[in-house]
């Protein structure tokens, strides 16, 4: 109320008549009799004062202690001072962040749920007609402004409309499986939603669990998209991890393996000592097997919100999805338990938000997939036939046909399809070399995925053969730092024309849009993993059409595997995209035997 920063100069006034100031919040204007009283007598009447610019008699303010939520009936003052941002205003933001498709709990706020507790503060009941609270909400930065690149949060880029919908769905959902197709920016959507919730104090701390190889990428994305957040990566020796878990950061990043190691039966162990506002599982298919320790640990984390991110919620069987949904539905305010069997689709539609590139990104360049069916070289054919005959003979002459033996034979045959054991002849390599010549001449970059890493038939062998294109190799045998360095070099060094990646280590999470050619040197068992690998290049930021080449050797196990892969794609399409079936687990022993015409 002091005038130290403003001063009104003497003004000529018309004699006997001044403007009449009216108290806000009153149904009626101050009584005429009151207006005639000297200002000092008018003081003490809440909300009323007399007009006197030299000596106004404000009677009610909330300035000394901020606004008290406990006295909602006293909000007739003229000025509303925001409480410290630590005071819990949760619900106000959500209530006015309305109308976002995909929201599940719109309107959940302080009115509807007065007894909910926060990880930081106790919420207080309010009345909907409370003017001050309506003002608190109304005067917050509008959500649409918060999401603009030119808005108060200064995002480093713009969000696509479908991403804004995804962010809205996450903001509103305690339980969400964000199952967008790879390359649509699930990480960014989750980060943006996290940042919004942290800024409005809806949450205090978030835990992000991701594959170890992606932790640095998450950290970099946070630095870019949410530089104001405090982040800690939990890794290293046990004694370091103890204090890392205790560090109060907005976002704690941890790998699945570290989480599994640090999640003990003690309630005071690192991951359990905090009640997380949100737990985000990136590449959530990592918990597809409900019986694993890591799946159990994730589901037992104390949390208010559970988000799972994966473009491939179903990799092999419907049980994969069930386990992920069990996590998503859990938390302090659990959702309906996921159903199984024919009802699984209903559960998916309840918890999953999934968009496909074709539906939301008309501007994304196309992905053109080409199967390259080649003949084995004579040396490869001889080696292949010999290995197959010997292997089958061994299998059939054994007391029992073991799956392990079948898989070992398949692996042997697949590696021969890559390179002949003697001499190293390779139809695939001949083809790849000729294509790389052309790509290199056109300043293009390529990714080559293989299941194997060995010197004989895997990534290192391929790198040796492609040495004139300055290849880089990325495998799970490398340290995380080395892997990150490799990706940086491939992105930044023009002369690096090809990156050879093991499918397992390099197929997830990496952003490699500077390459627009992808080669599958050999085929894995899982089409979802293959698609993920292709989408390292075919994702937001890609400006060219992405050409994917899949090598298949005619008359070999690879051709038979290809048929299985196609059937698995059908399963994914039906189950995850738009339908419900109850298929049996694929690739049973019978399936494997059928590959050799047995069983």
């Amino acid at each position, binding site marked *: *109320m002091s*005038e*130290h*920063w*403003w*001063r*009104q*100069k003497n*003004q000529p006034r*018309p004699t006997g*008549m*001044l*403007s*009449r*100031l*009216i108290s*806000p*919040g009153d149904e009626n204007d101050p009584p005429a009799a009151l207006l005639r009283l000297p200002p000092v007598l008018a003081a003490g009447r809440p909300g009323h004062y007399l*007009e006197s*610019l030299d000596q*106004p008699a*404000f009677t009610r*303010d909330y*300035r000394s202690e901020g606004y008290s939520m406990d006295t909602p009936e006293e909000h007739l003052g*003229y*000025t*509303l*001072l*925001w409480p410290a*941002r*630590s005071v819990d205003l949760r619900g106000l933001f959500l209530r006015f962040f309305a109308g976002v498709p995909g929201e599940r709990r719109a309107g959940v706020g302080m009115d509807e749920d007065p007894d909910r507790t926060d990880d*930081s503060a106790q919420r207080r009941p309010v009345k909907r007609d409370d*003017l001050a609270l*309506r*003002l*608190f909400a*109304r*005067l*917050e*930065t*509008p959500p*649409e*402004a918060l999401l*603009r*690149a*030119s*808005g*108060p*949060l*200064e995002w480093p880029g713009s969000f696509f409309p479908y991403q804004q919908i995804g962010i809205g769905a996450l903001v509103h959902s305690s339980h969400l499986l964000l199952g967008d197709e790879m390359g649509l920016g699930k990480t960014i959507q989750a980060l943006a939603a996290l940042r919004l919730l942290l*800024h409005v104090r809806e949450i*205090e*701390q978030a835990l992000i669990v991701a594959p170890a190889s992606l932790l640095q990428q998450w950290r970099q994305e946070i630095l870019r998209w949410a*530089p*104001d*957040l*405090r982040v800690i990566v939990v890794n290293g020796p046990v004694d370091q991890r103890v204090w890392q878990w205790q560090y*109060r*950061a*907005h976002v704690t990043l941890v790998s699945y393996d570290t989480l599994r190691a640090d999640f003990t039966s003690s309630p005071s162990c690192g991951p359990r000592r905090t009640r997380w506002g949100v737990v985000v599982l990136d590449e959530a298919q990592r918990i597809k097997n409900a019986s694993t320790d890591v799946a159990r640990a994730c589901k037992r984390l104390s949390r208010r919100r559970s988000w799972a991110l994966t473009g491939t919620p179903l990799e092999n069987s419907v049980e994969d999805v069930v386990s992920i949904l069990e996590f998503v539905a859990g938390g302090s305010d659990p959702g309906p338990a996921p159903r199984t069997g024919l009802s699984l689709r209903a559960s998916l539609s309840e918890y999953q938000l999934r968009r496909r590139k074709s539906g939301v990104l008309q501007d994304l360049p196309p992905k053109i997939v080409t199967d390259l069916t080649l003949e084995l070289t004579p040396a490869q054919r001889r080696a292949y036939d010999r290995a197959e005959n010997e292997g089958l003979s061994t299998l059939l002459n054994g007391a029992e046909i073991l799956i392990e033996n079948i898989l070992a034979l398949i692996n042997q045959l697949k590696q021969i399809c890559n390179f002949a054991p003697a001499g190293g002849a390779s139809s695939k390599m001949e083809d790849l070399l000729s294509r790389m010549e052309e790509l290199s001449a056109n300043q293009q970059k390529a990714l080559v995925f293989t299941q194997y890493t060995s010197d004989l038939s895997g990534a290192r062998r391929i790198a040796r053969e492609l040495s004139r294109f300055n290849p880089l190799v990325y495998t799970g045998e490398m340290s995380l730092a080395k892997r990150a360095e490799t990706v940086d070099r491939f992105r930044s060094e023009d002369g690096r024309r090809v990156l050879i990646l093991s499918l397992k280590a390099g197929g997830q999470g990496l952003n490699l849009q500077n390459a627009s050619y992808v080669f599958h040197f050999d085929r894995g068992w899982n089409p979802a993993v293959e698609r993920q690998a292709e989408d390292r290049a075919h994702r937001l930021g890609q400006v060219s059409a992405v050409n994917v080449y899949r090598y298949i050797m005619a008359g070999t196990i690879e051709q038979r595997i290809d048929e299985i892969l196609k059937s698995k794609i059908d399963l994914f399409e039906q189950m995850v995209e738009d339908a419900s079936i109850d298929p049996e687990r694929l690739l049973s022993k019978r399936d494997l035997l059928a590959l050799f015409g047995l069983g």
Partner: protein
Amino acid sequence: MPIPFHDNEDIDELGAAAFLHVEAPSQNNAQRYGALLFLNARGEPLEFAYNRVELIGNALWRPADRAVAAVRRLAATLFQAVTLTPTLLLCRADTVPPYLFGPEGQIELQFPVGRVATAAEAVGYSPREAQVSLETADRDGELIQTHVFWTPEAPVDRAADLFTRISRRGLVLEPFERAGKGLREVYGDPLGTAP
């Protein structure tokens, strides 16, 4: 204790920008509604003061002077009511006359006052005001040309930093809409539904 954001200290250091918003329900309406909204450099509200006045009914006053007097009274009462001290003040050039604030004006402030107008608006300004043009986001997030008429002079030092920050973050025009929404929340019908 909440976990502090990395930029908390910067934000606190810059202080608050005050937005003086004045509305008339209709041309012949005898009332003026005013709000003073304080935002930090991130656009978070810190304080909101509001009031309304009736125009002086004396026939000796010219209509334009009555309106100006009402704005002056609104501003004075709002300044009186608030607890925070702003780093700078912004108001719309179409509702606040050029000679209300500043050394020569009726109310003297100890920090820069900027009257804001989009390039499409026709507003008067005083030669004593320093005009600055910039691009800032409108309600739809589109960048538009905007003029700010500063008195006594364009901001320097901390006030300049604050203004740079809020203009970069689309907070030059948008807060007036927010203040208008706040007034509607308080007074309801007389102001209609849209700012």
